[in-house]
């Protein structure tokens, strides 16, 4: 069964050999997992969030296991975009699978500079814009929680990287995710990925301290899958651009649920921690899962959810 697809963007398309990608922050630069599977069998891999300059990230503890999930407040530790382009990217199989650079910045101008730097990199197929970060110039308000700020980032990145597919990754920590989705679509996004982590917290009763040094962190893993499905369903109805779903996907059946509610492709995140071959196994099992469920035409299956009552 051919599961290849093209995410048809407003400016740039993104071709994927299958709809299984890995989620940013859970798969390193891909190389960390290359002994557990063939990276070229994945539809694509979204690398660890890149910033213009290297970042040291937050103090430890940065991660904590919660029921059916985990919280993280790593603080976007990364080696910076230059090290990625010169040391990591050349070692990735970018001719055989889509390498998607997740980008993170503290201002619109910095986002544009990052996008411009990556626009000329042949090995980068797309940019995923992480708008779930504070805008330092706007008093720390999150870009992704304000429709105007999210749009401003999207159009700046769009203009700075005219040769790349621009995917905007939305936060679920908003009142109306469809509103933000429409706003970034209007600003020129080629596709939308959702969801980023849910803001959460864990505490230690013995020490009476937060479990994370940062106090709060992002919740991911199977615990958030129902929220992610709801968001993807809402966003897919609100926009015309393709939607990439993520949040708690562990199996081929989980992936198909996201396709059913309107996603074109999916990302595997925390699942990579349950077993390091999770994304590889999922991509390999997808055709058999389709067969078991009688899905002969994946294109027709996408977004084919039927429901009775309007919401």
């Amino acid at each position: 069964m051919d599961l290849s697809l093209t995410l048809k963007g407003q400016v740039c398309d993104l071709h994927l050999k299958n709809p299984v990608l890995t989620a940013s922050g859970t798969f390193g630069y891909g190389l960390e997992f290359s002994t557990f599977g063939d990276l070229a069998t994945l539809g694509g891999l979204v690398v660890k969030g890149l910033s213009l300059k290297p970042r040291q990230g937050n103090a430890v503890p940065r991660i904590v296991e919660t029921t059916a999930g985990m919280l993280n407040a790593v603080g976007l530790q990364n080696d910076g975009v230059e090290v990625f382009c010169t040391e990591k990217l050349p070692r990735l199989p970018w001719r055989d699978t889509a390498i998607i650079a997740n980008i993170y910045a503290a201002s619109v101008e910095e986002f544009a500079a990052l996008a411009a730097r990556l626009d000329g990199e042949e090995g980068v197929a797309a940019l995923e814009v992480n708008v779930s970060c504070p805008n330092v110039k706007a008093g720390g308000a999150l870009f992704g929680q304000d429709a105007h700020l999210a749009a401003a980032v999207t159009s700046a990145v769009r203009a700075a990287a005219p040769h790349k597919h621009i995917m905007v990754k939305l936060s679920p920590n908003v009142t109306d995710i469809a509103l933000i989705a429409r706003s970034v679509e209007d600003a020129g996004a080629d596709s939308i990925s959702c969801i980023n982590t849910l803001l959460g917290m864990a505490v230690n009763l013995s020490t009476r301290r937060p479990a994370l040094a940062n106090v709060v962190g992002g919740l991911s893993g199977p615990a958030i899958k129902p929220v992610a499905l709801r968001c993807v369903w809402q966003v897919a109805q609100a926009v015309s651009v393709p939607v990439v779903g993520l949040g708690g996907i562990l199996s081929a059946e989980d992936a198909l649920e996201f396709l059913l509610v309107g996603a074109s492709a999916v990302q595997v995140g925390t699942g990579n921690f349950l077993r390091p071959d999770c994304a590889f196994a999922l991509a390999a099992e997808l055709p058999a899962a389709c067969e078991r469920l009688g899905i002969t035409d994946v294109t027709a299956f996408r977004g084919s959810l039927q429901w009775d009552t309007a919401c």
Partner: protein
Amino acid sequence: MGNERLTGRPLCAYKEGMSQPNFCELDVLDLVPFGQSGKESRFFALRLTRPDWHIWQPGQFVMLRPDNFGLDLPWARPFGICHMTARHMICFFQVRGRGTQRMSRLRAGDRVRAWGPLGQGFVMEPDSPTLLLAGGMGIVPFVGYVNLHPKPWNVSMLFGHREHISCYPVDSINEHVPVDSLREQQSGDLDNFIYTIQERMRDLAEQQGLVLACGPTPFMRTVQTFAAELGVRCQLSLENRMACGVGACLGCVARTSSSWPDPHKRDSPVQVCTHGPVFWADHVVL
């Protein structure tokens, strides 16, 4: 219960160099409780079918995720490899939290997902006088170390612990190398242990030997301080909370010192899982 020797012909001779970690599903062969009979055990040797690894180094670790973790405990747990033979791999653990609690209920035939061998192990210099310093569960990686060491007469161990000696796999070590153990039971014991560490490290420094340490962080800080004062070569095995074990989640980072070899990574966070868990004592800040 207890004092079982975790022995068997070692899987292979010690070799320098990295092995490629792989992912496999292993069967539980048995779970042997350690400790005094009559008490509910919190210490266990978990014997698993042998993973398909060609080489490994003592000090390296493995991520284990038993099927009984279900979805509610999503993370695997990192365990220092205790010992590996041609037929099985042994991990040794103390019940400390939800994961190890559930692991204490494993039975023969249960399935465990495993990936490894991971990280950097201890150096082995057959001709150097080598002192192993273990605090509590820090004894575990030294079982494999003394089993693989080609000249065990050059090795000795100092072991500090709080629980009864029968809780730990000491017999698997002292059949190869001499072990001095000190149990911390009353005030003064800790000072005595620290004094003994310092004296033994001083001897090693005079012999230009090697000190390898594994144990709780305060213990490691003490060893690190003495290593710097005495100028003795010393490696420390760190333990941090991990989700992936392969360098991706960035949860387990430790801070490098200004002596870290790569100038770009000095005074920076580095992953304990891939750059460690064993570090040269002067390379990290504890």
